[in-house]
């Protein structure tokens, strides 16, 4: 097997998710693991992947790859996969990686299995594990041809250091015209405003079920009573109800407080991956079928506008406030 791991970076760091996939690949596929870094001025950071099990790292270093846009990356990867006879390409899910993987699937007519949480080898065959239907069914999936493409759910694997080092090999960058048509006008910066929620022992999070930005006070008051921080879903952050710095989930923060109280949150997978390792999860949602109840320790089918203020009062009373 010849396995390639897409190594995503931000600033001058390789992402933990990508390195976790390298570690996983090294245990499943054995020695022949290569990584690939695409960007501008990325040579130095490529070497870091050796320490997680990559024997070789391909580097596509070009100013045209500076912005995290998918299509130029598809061009470079398609060429590399063909040239090197790579049969398996693994990606840690991200906004960028998903679009790269899907573009590559079309370009190479290659099978893509997404949202995998595990990968094993069974009788010489690669088998991916994919939770489906709100994680109520675990499906074993595979590929009928090569190259095989796999996109892993965020946070599926932790990186572990091997002390190894990688051989660096430069890759040529030749881009299609349509691939460079989209242009980054303003790239995301680390948003520092707003409190950091990652270290909070308690998080009370609000979603669209709150009904409007003004109702976030309900969540804030409960958080205050419990000595915790406020979290939010992408839906309410995108809608401008609450700052991005408080977002929990795939494209927000990954948190594991002792207590997570979800108020008016449906429990989408992309939210779940950011909070599932919380100690205790309490959910309040008026829809008895909301997916959040599948992974809450205590689920309350009810209206946040009634339950949350009452709970705040009770907590205050108990604390003698």
């Amino acid at each position, binding site marked *: 097997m010849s396995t390639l791991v897409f190594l995503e970076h931000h600033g001058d760091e390789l992402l933990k998710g990508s390195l976790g996939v390298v570690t996983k690949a090294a245990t499943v596929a054995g020695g022949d693991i290569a990584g690939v870094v695409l960007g501008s001025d990325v040579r130095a950071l490529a070497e870091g992947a050796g320490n997680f099990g990559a024997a070789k790292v391909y580097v596509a270093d070009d100013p045209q790859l500076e912005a*995290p*846009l*998918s*299509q130029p990356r*598809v061009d470079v990867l398609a060429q590399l996969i063909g040239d090197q006879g790579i049969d398996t390409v693994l990606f840690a899910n991200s*906004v960028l990686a998903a*679009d*790269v*993987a*899907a*573009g*590559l*699937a*079309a370009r190479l007519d290659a*099978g*893509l299995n*997404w*949202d995998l949480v595990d990968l094993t080898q069974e009788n010489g065959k690669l088998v991916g594990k994919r939770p*489906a*239907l709100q*994680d*109520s*069914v*675990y*499906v074993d*999936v595979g*590929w*009928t041809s090569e190259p095989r493409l796999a996109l892993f759910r965020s946070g599926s694997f932790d990186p572990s250091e091997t002390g190894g080092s990688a051989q660096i090999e430069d890759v040529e960058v030749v881009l299609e015209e*349509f*691939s460079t048509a*989209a*242009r*980054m*006008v303003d790239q*995301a*910066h*680390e948003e520092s405003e707003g409190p950091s929620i990652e270290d909070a022992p*308690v998080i009370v999070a609000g979603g669209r079920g709150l009904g409007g930005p003004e109702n976030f006070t309900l969540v804030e008051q409960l958080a205050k009573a*419990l000595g915790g921080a406020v979290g939010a879903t*992408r*839906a309410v952050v*995108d*809608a401008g109800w609450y700052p*991005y710095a408080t977002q929990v989930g795939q*494209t927000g923060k990954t948190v594991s407080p*002792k*207590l997570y109280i979800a108020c008016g949150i449906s429990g989408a997978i992309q939210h779940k991956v950011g909070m599932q390792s919380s100690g*205790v999860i309490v959910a309040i949602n008026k829809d*008895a079928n909301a997916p959040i109840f*599948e992974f*809450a320790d*205590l*689920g*309350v*089918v*009810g209206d946040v506008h009634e*339950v949350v203020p009452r*709970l705040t009062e*009770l*907590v205050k009373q108990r604390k003698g406030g």
Partner: protein
Amino acid sequence: MKIAVCVKQIPEGSSRIDPESKRLDRSGEGALNPFDANAVEEALRLRDAAGESEVVLVSMGPARAQDALRKALAMGADSAVLVSDEAAAGADLVATSYALSKALEREGADLILFGQQAGDSDGAVLWAAVADRLRLPVVSQAAGVTHENGKVTVKRQTEFGYDVIEAPLPAVVAVSDAINEPRYPSLKGIMGAKSKPQATVSLGDLGVEPERAGEQGSRTEVYALGDPPARGESKKIEDDGSAAQVILDFLAEKRLV
């Protein structure tokens, strides 16, 4: 401007996987994928802002999927094309993106919109595959889209915050479910939808070779279905006025208050 919106019919309510075929059971009632309603809504807004524009729905699915398309027509889309063919069943990303791109090629739209994911398979990948086949620029996770001077400007959220990306038309854009609040069809819209053009085309009509369609044209397979890992003890209650007390007692028992 011509805007094509790719939409899909998904099973209504809670769905199941058929243990025999290992495919999603699509025998029950169908609904419009809720995430697609955001794409339809955005298309209608862009159409109305641009003037002299039209919105065409493009879908692939069983013949019954016309019902879901009618719901999007009732919202205000102008026409619909459904790729429907026995031979398309069981298509994965490779086969679906190929057939859909053939259908989209015929439409020659300036802007092609997608919703953020399929509510049944949780797939959130189709747009990038379709864009590659059509050799068009693509931007996904759009939380805002504006259109001006032959280009779109998209605000998207990634793991690091918000990017602003610009792409010349024709382009493919996938919108987030927070970009807008989809309208409910009016009674007039529902009545009017019945007389809007709804075409059905076969794979042959699109020139899709049989070996590139459906299961045959797919590159992934399903081996087995299993149970999720067991979860710890959990309970669920209905609020009868005492839920706050139940939560407090629970937190006290866990020593969290």
